[in-house]
């Protein structure tokens, strides 16, 4: 295999994985923008959403698109419930309280997903094996589905925020909730909707991830990596999060390609090392808004 083919194929896989990370990171981003806290329940929400699709597809024989829709609906619902039960009562309290509460929700969701899946271990979402060579590039249907799902998710979030009245209202609430209230915006409802959409976005990302890594309880690991991408880029910037996700994909794939033969496993940890360095130099991330607080 020549170097060009290796680089092209690794680059393509890095791109697909990067888009999945970006979509996962958007789940954190949307919650952060709405409530200024990191949703630590997201990794388990990802596992739960993937299991919902798997159960719908594999046990109830629903078609893949319907299973995916069920998963998105479940993600949305969980987001709304988390907002109603945790974020709303803790509004105005220290951010760390909400983060602790989402950590609690992580364990609750883990329990629920274990019970819901009847302790079932893992499975495949049943994407047919179809391969196609495009020049030096080998593309499978699962690549196309994963890339399509994650890029559609990213695009949908960007378009929602840029081009819809709802998105503008959500941005207004995120930037200045008191001002938004003064203008008559339903701040509570919009915050709840933000959490719900964040849940659906995480579910969509979970499906893309499950296509590439199969359904299983360890999917939460990738969602944690996506948190690194969010922190690297800056949690409150949508564009930054997308760049961060892509950067994570490329750093990880090319890092392990170059380093695994000499130091196995180090390449996949490079993203965390990069995140640490960035946070030391720029605590709000590369694209994050620096908050100036009066003391």
């Amino acid at each position: 295999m020549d170097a060009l083919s290796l680089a092209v194929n690794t680059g393509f896989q890095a791109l697909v994985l990067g888009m999945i990370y970006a979509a996962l990171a958007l789940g954190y981003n949307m919650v952060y923008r709405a409530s200024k806290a990191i949703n630590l329940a997201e990794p388990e929400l990802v596992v739960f959403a993937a299991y919902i699709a798997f159960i719908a597809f594999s046990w109830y024989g629903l078609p893949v698109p319907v299973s995916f829709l069920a998963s998105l609906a479940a993600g949305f619902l969980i987001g709304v419930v988390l907002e109603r039960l945790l974020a709303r009562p803790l509004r105005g309290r220290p951010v760390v309280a909400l983060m602790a509460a989402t950590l609690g929700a992580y364990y609750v969701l883990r329990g629920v997903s274990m019970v819901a899946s009847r302790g079932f271990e893992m499975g495949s979402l049943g994407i047919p094996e179809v391969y196609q060579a495009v020049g030096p590039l080998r593309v499978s249907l699962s690549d196309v589905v994963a890339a399509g799902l994650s890029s559609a998710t990213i695009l949908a979030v960007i378009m929602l925020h840029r081009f819809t009245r709802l998105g503008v209202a959500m941005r207004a609430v995120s930037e200045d909730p008191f001002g938004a209230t003064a203008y008559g915006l339903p701040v509570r409802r919009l915050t709840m909707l933000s959490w719900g959409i964040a849940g659906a976005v995480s579910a969509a990302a979970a499906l893309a991830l499950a296509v590439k890594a199969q359904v299983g309880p360890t999917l939460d690991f990738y969602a944690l990596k996506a948190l690194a991408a969010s922190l690297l880029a800056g949690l409150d910037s949508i564009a930054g999060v997308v760049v961060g996700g892509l950067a994570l994909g490329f750093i990880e794939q090319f890092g392990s390609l170059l380093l695994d033969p000499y130091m196995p496993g180090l390449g996949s940890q490079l993203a965390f090392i990069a995140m640490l360095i960035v946070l030391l130099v720029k605590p709000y991330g590369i694209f994050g808004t620096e908050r100036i607080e009066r003391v």
Partner: protein
Amino acid sequence: MAQAKYLGLIVAVILVAAAAALLLTHHPAQPAQTTTTSMQHVKTIHVPVGVLVDLSGPTSGVGRDYAKGVEAGLKYFNEKGVYTRDGVRVVFDYWVRDYAYNPTRAETFYKEFRDKYGVWAIIGWGTADTEQLADSAARDHIAYFSASYSAKLVVKPYNFFPAPDYSTQACAAMKWIASRTRNARLVLLYDHNVAYSRSPIPAIKAYAPRLGIKIVGDVHLPLRATEADAEKAMREAMTKNPDYYWCGNTIRSCALAVKAAAKLGAKGMFVINVWGFDERFPKLAGRGAYGRAAGVSPFRYPEMAEDTPGYKVLTAAMKAAGYTRKDIGSMLRFEQGFLNVWLLVQAIERLNSTTLLKGKGEAIKEALESSCHGKPFTFGGLAPPARYCPGRHLPYTSVWIILLGKDGKLHAEGPINVTGFDCVKATLQSSGG
């Protein structure tokens, strides 16, 4: 006031989370009852057992069904009744803990089992944690039955498993390869950072060249691989132009590697370690894997052993635990968990009540080792008869190769017996063990 309300809410959420976690990991067996003190009037002996499993960590893909098998075994034998040689009823009190494949957490739970519940036996899981706890188990006289079949455990006095060690299994796989292809070229694919995956590698490297197999590559494949990682590893492996690939990870990772091979048009056959291949493999790896993958198994696959008495016991245990076939992803993993319990039960059945009460874990160990020159332990045809000798707990040395045929069905070949080469020794020597 408001602050107290919110604090209360947070505490409530954390409590709910803790309760959920407890519900999942703590199975309310009877409290740690001690046995009746007066030995003349013993009616029932309560044997405390710790169960250490991975339900949420990187090996949970095979760990959950194993855990179900262990629990089903304990429930089944508790219901059916286990009796010592002199007819005293034995009941297992057991505690299940999910350690998520984290050796540090395993050690914490081990201490809990030992100090809080005073367990006599542990049904455990992974390689790193079992190896780490082996010396403690010996010191504390706790009989330890693991799902790890690491060669390093063969020489540990309190460690047992009803299978040949990974190294012996891998050697049998090498023998199978040599019988199919002369001077075969082999690439090793496994996670270089995981004790389970690394375990048989020294034995493969020592034994394969003796059979004319040339090891041409040693490639890192992460246990938590994505398709991208598997594809990358396969691209590197393919540059060595092998006839065979040894996949030493668990099933998810190995299935992705075989899938990647099909996508890249790689030639060659995959031979996969015991935890990397089971009945789910054809579905997980897809049609591209048909005719190009085989798994090593010391056990008869349940679907291939339906005519055996062992299978009837296994399905009875499944029913006793309230499971249907639909609740079990892999019956093989369920069987592996169940067999560990069955081995413990058979050891207890060889003891009389006084010896068991007096010796506890040590008595169980001695009962197991009594098979060395005596009657072996049998598993109703699910696994070969097992004998354990003091200093060398290698119950037998044969394995089956389960071939995924071009028809998408599984076919058993063998059993293959490794003779004339000590694969355990090869591994121990390489690690200074």
